C-alpha cells in the first residue's frame, strides 16, 4: 500500500521500440484498478526511432502533475543500461533502480558496464543490473517481454506497492491477446 498523502513515483527509461509505453500503461492500469489515482507523461513521435525515452508514472490518493519531481522517484526501471545515468537526477538515496543489463548502440558516446557500475555507486546503493533481456531471449526466444520481466522482478523484491493479481489483469487488458502467453511466461521467468 502507498501511505496516505504519499505518492508513488516511477520512471521507466530506455530507447524507443522497447515497449516502454505499453509497460507504463500496464503499471497505470494496475494502480488504477487497485483504487489509486494515476497519471503518466509520455513523449511520442520519436519513440519508435531508437531515441532516448523516459516515461513518468505516478499513483497515489490524488495526483496533480504528471511529472516526477527531481529526487522524488521511488523506482526507476531502465531497459537499456546506458540510459541509467540521464535519469539519476530523479533519484535520492531511497530510490531503487532495476536495470536491464543490455545496450544498444548510440550514435555518439557509450559507457561500459564496469564504468556504469562505478558511476552508479557514487549516487546509489540500491541498484541492480539484471540480465533480463538476455534471459528472455534465451528462454523465450525473444527479448520483447523484457519490461514485464523487470516489472515482475520489482514485485518479487517488493519495490512496487501493487499486487501480482492486478498486474496480471492489466497485462491482459493492455496487450493484444497474441502477446499474452510470452509475457506471462516472462513474468514467471523472473521468479526463478
Amino acid at each position, binding site marked *: 500500500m502507498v501511505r496516505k498523502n504519499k505518492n508513488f513515483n516511477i520512471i521507466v527509461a530506455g530507447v524507443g521500440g522497447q515497449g516502454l509505453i505499453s509497460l507504463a500503461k500496464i503499471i497505470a492500469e494496475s494502480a488504477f484498478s487497485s483504487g489509486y489515482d494515476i497519471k503518466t507523461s509520455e513523449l511520442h513521435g520519436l519513440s519508435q526511432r531508437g531515441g532516448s525515452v523516459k516515461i513518468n508514472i505516478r499513483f497515489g490518493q490524488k495526483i*496533480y*502533475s504528471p511529472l516526477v519531481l527531481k529526487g522524488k522517484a521511488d523506482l526507476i526501471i531502465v531497459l537499456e543500461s546506458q540510459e541509467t*545515468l540521464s535519469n539519476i537526477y530523479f533519484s535520492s538515496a531511497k530510490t531503487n533502480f532495476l536495470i536491464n543489463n543490455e545496450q544498444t548502440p548510440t550514435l555518439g558516446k557509450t559507457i561500459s558496464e564496469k564504468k556504469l557500475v562505478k558511476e552508479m555507486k557514487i549516487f546509489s546503493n540500491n541498484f541492480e543490473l539484471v540480465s533480463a533481456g538476455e534471459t528472455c531471449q534465451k528462454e523465450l526466444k525473444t527479448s520483447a517481454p523484457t519490461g514485464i520481466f523487470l516489472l515482475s522482478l520489482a514485485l518479487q523484491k517488493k519495490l512496487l506497492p501493487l499486487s501480482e493479481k492486478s498486474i496480471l489483469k492489466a497485462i491482459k487488458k493492455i496487450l493484444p491477446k497474441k502477446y499474452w502467453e510470452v509475457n506471462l511466461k516472462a513474468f514467471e521467468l523472473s521468479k526463478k
Partner: protein
Amino acid sequence: MENILRKTGKTILLGNEAIVRGALESGVQFVSTYPGTPASEIGDSFSNILKSKKGDFYFEYSVNEKVALEAGIGASFSNLKTLVAMKNFGLNVASDSLLPFCYTGTQGPTVIVVADDPSCYSSAQSEENSRAFAQLAHMPILEPADPQECKDFVGVAFQVSQKYKIPVMVRLTTRVAHQRAVVQLKKISAIKKEGIFIENKNQFVTMPPRVLEMKKELLAKIDKIKNEVSEKSFLNKIQNQRSKLNSKTEFSQGENEGEDETKSHRFQNSKVGIITSGISYLYTIESLKELSLDIPVLKLGFFHPLPEEKIKKFIGSPVTGLKKVLVIEELEPYLEREVERLAKNTNPKIQIFGKNYLSEIGELKTENIIPLLAKITGKKIKKNKNIEIDPIKHLPRFCSGCPYWNVFNGIKKATTKYKNIIFGGDIGCYMMAATCFDSFYDYLSCMGSSIGIGHGIAKATNGKKQKIISFIGDSTFFHSGIPALINCVHNESDILLIILDNQITAMTGHQPHPGIKNGKPRIKIENIIKALEIKNWKKIDPLKNYNDFIKTAEKFLDQKGVSVIIASHPCWLYYGKKK
C-alpha cells in the same frame, strides 16, 4: 480504443483520446486532420473507431491542415458538428482560412484542437505558442490541464460555438496531449451526419464592404462570450484544492453555486495570489503541496476572452487586495501582460511576478516554480544537490531496415566529387539524416520548404558554383511540396529533388496520404512529375537498384533545370513488420 468507447464510469485516457471522447459525447459528425505530433492520436483514434465500424461520423486525413480546416468549414456551413485537429505549425498553414472563418462564423458548431510543443520534443521549426492566435483571429481559446478537462472542455467548446456561432479553439501542449489519467465519462451521443447547405450569402461571403460589418459582429461576439460565459464559467475559478468540475454540465454555470471565494476568510488573509492556466496549473498545485502553502489560485480555463472582471476582483484594490501576484504560464507572457494591463487601474501597487523569474524558453516545470514561490513567501527550501554527470544519450535514428539508409549513403557516394553541395532538409523521418550522417543538412525549416528555399538559393547563386539537392518525403510533398516544385519549373530552377517515397506518413505514426489508400497506391507521384513536363526524372528503388540510384543522381547533378528522383521503397517499420 476500448477505453475511449467505454459506456460510462471511469477509465484511463490519454489527453488526445479524451479529446476524442469529448467530441463523441458531444455528438461530433465531421472530423478532419493532418497528422502532427503531439496531436496525431486525435485523428488516429477517430480513424480507428471508424475502421472498426463503431462510429457514425465522417473522418478524413486531409492533404494538409489548410485543406483540413476548409473541409471542416464546409461541414460547418452545412450545419454539421465539426472538429478539426492539428499541431501548432498546422495552424499556421490553416491560418489563411481560419481568419475569415472567424468572420463568417459557424453554422454547425466547430472546435479546432491545436497542440503546442514547449521544449520542441517533436517539433523542429520553432517553439510556437498558438495562444497568439487569440489576438490575430479573435477566436475563443480554452486551455485544459489534464485528460478530464480535455474531455470536458471540448464539450464546453462545442456549446460556446453552438450558442455564439464562432469556431472555438482548444489548445493543448505536449504534457496535456500525452498525459494519461483517469477520466469520468458521460454517455456518447451519436447524431447522424446529414448536412444541408442553406444559402446565406450574407454570412458565408466575406467580400467588402460586408467584411467590415463581419469584423464588428465578431468583436461583439467575443465581448458577449466574455461577459456571458468567461466571467461566469466554472472554467475560470478561484481554487486551491481541485474542485469537481464534473458535477457541472452547462458552461455558463457559476463557480461553487454562488459562493464567492474572494469573500472567504482564507482569501482575505492572503496577500499573495497566483493566476495560471493549462498544465501550469498542475505544476502550481504541486509546488504549493511541496511547500505546504495555502495560496489562492485563479485557474483560467479560458485564455480568450479573459474574464477581466474576475481577474480584477482577484487582484483587488490597493487597500484590500493582494500585495503580490504570480502569473504562472509557459512560454511567452501573454497572460502576464493582460494581468499587468488590468492591474494598472485596479491595484497599481501590486507586485507582479512571472517572466522576470520564469523562462520564456522551454517547458515550465514544478522545479522552476518552487524556488519562486519560496522566495515570494519567505519559505526556506532545501537546495537540490547539483549532480554532475555526462549522461549517454541515444539520438533518434533511422530504423535498422529503413530504406533511407540507402538513400543518404547513395547521395553521399554520388556527390563525392563535388565540394559545395547544398543539402536541403524537410519535415519527416528523413530529418534523422542529421543525426545519422553527421549534421547532414545545410538548411531545414518547415513543411515543404526544402524545395522553395532551394529554389531561392539556386536563383540567388545562379546555380553556378553550388549544386542544390533538396529532400522531401511523400506525405510532405503532397502537403506543401507540390506548389514549390511547380514554382521551380515555372521559374526555371537548377535543382535536384529527391522525393523519399516510403508510401506512408511514417514519422507521426503511419497515417495514409494521397499517394496511398487502404494500403494500395492512389495518386502516383510520377504522374505529377510527368504533368509538370520535367524531363530529368526517374523512379528508383534505392534498395533493389542502389547502383542505379547513385548513377542517376550523378547524372542529374550534371544536368541543367529541375531534376527529380523518386526514391521509392516502403517504410520498413510499417510494411516490414506487417509481413
